[in-house]
């Protein structure tokens, strides 16, 4: 039984089949990448995994439990958290508050406990604050704790998103183009950070266009094109796969010219 097992998931928007019978699996502790040209359906797969869209066919199992048809809130509670391709932070909130929202599902006190600032409330709140600061420091944002999210540079906002996802205590992190908009030095640093996540016991499913990142950290790669899975394998297998080259570069001849 796989950690995450996706079988034949399909999603149609009217006449367009955005995701067409895609199968894949992720084992615990792996870094698996989902790549493909623009419009291949990668982000749609993430939206299906996290309960934004209902599947038209297929099923998703996570840690032995069916998660298709569940709400996003249930899925994140089961241990899958994500980041977004187009940043979706809470811009008017501080960085630490963004991360504390990530910890929302594990923050246990009642409304009246918070109203009267009971000792139980304070203990819980302080625990979550400490954890939030720890996460932010681990991702290199210790100096940004007090800042408002909208004031951060793009690359750091992406990191806050990852920190927020970590705060949910997820076991599986879905990272949607975390290196987008980063300069080479930043994406290098991000790459090392994702490897550290793996060491810390996280499982990562990654959508990424930056091939240096993908090829360097992925254990396995799945390639999507027009909603279908066209290839699977280890990085070195993928770079030489004729179908992948055709999907990315548009035909044999151009592919050869590239060599």
């Amino acid at each position, binding site marked *: 039984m796989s950690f995450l097992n996706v079988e034949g998931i399909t999603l149609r928007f009217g006449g367009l089949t955005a995701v067409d019978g895609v199968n894949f699996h992720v084992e615990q502790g792996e870094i698996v990448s989902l790549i493909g040209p623009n419009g291949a359906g990668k982000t749609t797969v993430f939206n299906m995994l*996290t309960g*934004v869209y209902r599947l038209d066919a297929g099923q998703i199992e996570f840690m032995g439990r069916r998660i298709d048809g569940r709400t*996003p*809130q249930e899925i*994140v*509670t089961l241990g899958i*958290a*994500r980041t*977004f391709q187009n940043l*979706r*932070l*809470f*811009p*008017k*909130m*501080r960085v*630490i*508050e963004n991360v*504390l*929202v*990530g910890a*929302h*599902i594990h*923050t246990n*006190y009642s*409304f009246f406990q*918070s*109203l*009267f*600032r009971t000792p139980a*409330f*304070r*203990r819980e*709140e*302080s625990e979550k*604050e*400490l954890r939030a*600061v720890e996460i*932010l*420091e681990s991702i290199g944002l*210790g*100096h*940004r*704790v*007090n*800042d*408002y999210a909208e*004031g951060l540079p793009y690359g750091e906002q992406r990191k806050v998103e990852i920190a*927020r996802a970590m705060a*949910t205590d997820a076991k599986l992190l879905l990272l949607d183009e975390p290196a987008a908009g980063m300069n080479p030095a930043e994406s290098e640093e991000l790459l090392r950070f994702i490897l550290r996540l793996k060491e810390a016991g996280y499982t990562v499913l990654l959508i990424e266009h930056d091939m240096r990142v993908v090829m360097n950290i992925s254990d396995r790669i799945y390639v999507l094109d027009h909603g279908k899975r066209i290839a699977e394998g280890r990085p070195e297998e993928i770079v030489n796969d004729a179908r992948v080259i055709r999907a990315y570069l548009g035909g044999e001849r151009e592919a050869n010219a590239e060599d």
Partner: protein
Amino acid sequence: MKKKLGTIRENGFLYVFEHFIDAHRAALIALLALLAIAFPYTPVADRSTQRIVTMILLYAMLGMGLNVLTGYAGMVSLGHAGFYGIGAYCCALLTTRLNFSFWPALLLAGCLAALVGFLLGLPSLRLSGTYLSIVTLGFCEIVQMVLKQWDSVTNGNYGIRNIPKPELFGHQFNLQNGGFYQIILALSVLTALGCLAIKRSKYGRAFQAIRDDELAAGMMGVRTARYKILAFVISAFITGVAGGFYSVINNGYIEPNNFVFNVSVLIISVVVVGGLGTIRGMFFGAALLQLFPQVFPQVFRFLNEWRFVIYGVLLVAAMRFRPQGALGWQSTLPYPLSRRTREELAHRSVLPGGEKGATP
């Protein structure tokens, strides 16, 4: 540990101002409390000043009520005069018809408004933005109609008369002895403390997350529907209590016209002019909007006919040039971590963000 404020030129006015207040917080609060408690016994506190200050605090409380919904959770309501009216009528009817004492009636006024807020919140879950505002606008009109038409209970357009003044252990609270002021002072301070407590908890963070990005909030596990309704309930409760208070200060008389749409607009103006999402802004906005019609006609007598035009122009200008409101700045102070957290971090000799707060 004494922090250096630096000069305004180095750090900006806001930084120096906020850090000065923070450094002298206890003394300033004590001073403010002293002034607030002493006010009715000072020579300036004649009837008209008392009335104005009471109205300012009442509208600050109404502002804080709407602020929970609009400032924190990002849902704009044009129907808060409805909750205000429900609270006022509930309290007035309980005291005049059922001989309730004022205090339980006040609490029940809040509870009834909260219940209606819950019911109004339900259909509002599927709506957002303008559509939600239109529903709340309709709600305000419905309350208005019910108050006018339900003669057997509300006495229709004649309103309710002879609402008794609040008493506690034989002491009567009225305008002359500063009692009204004392009640609304206590209510508004309690409301402010409650709102602060909510804002600095997972509830307030969930509200703000929904305001900033509802989808992302849901993805982080926030049950957005539940929290939107909760925001409605809290907001309506505060507004209902404020309404209950209003029923006793208006010469013992209320009528449906006290709770028309214009009142909703005034409440929302307090929130927007003062600063969405802040507490300080509600007091400031209420002071500004209550003083304006009092002071303006006396100072600018020749402009009296134009006063509502000028009022409108000022509101539009505020929206255009300072949409965050007069006092709606982002704090330059560090995030108020709990003491336990600060001690633990100091122990590990890590100070997040150092001495400085948000870097602009």
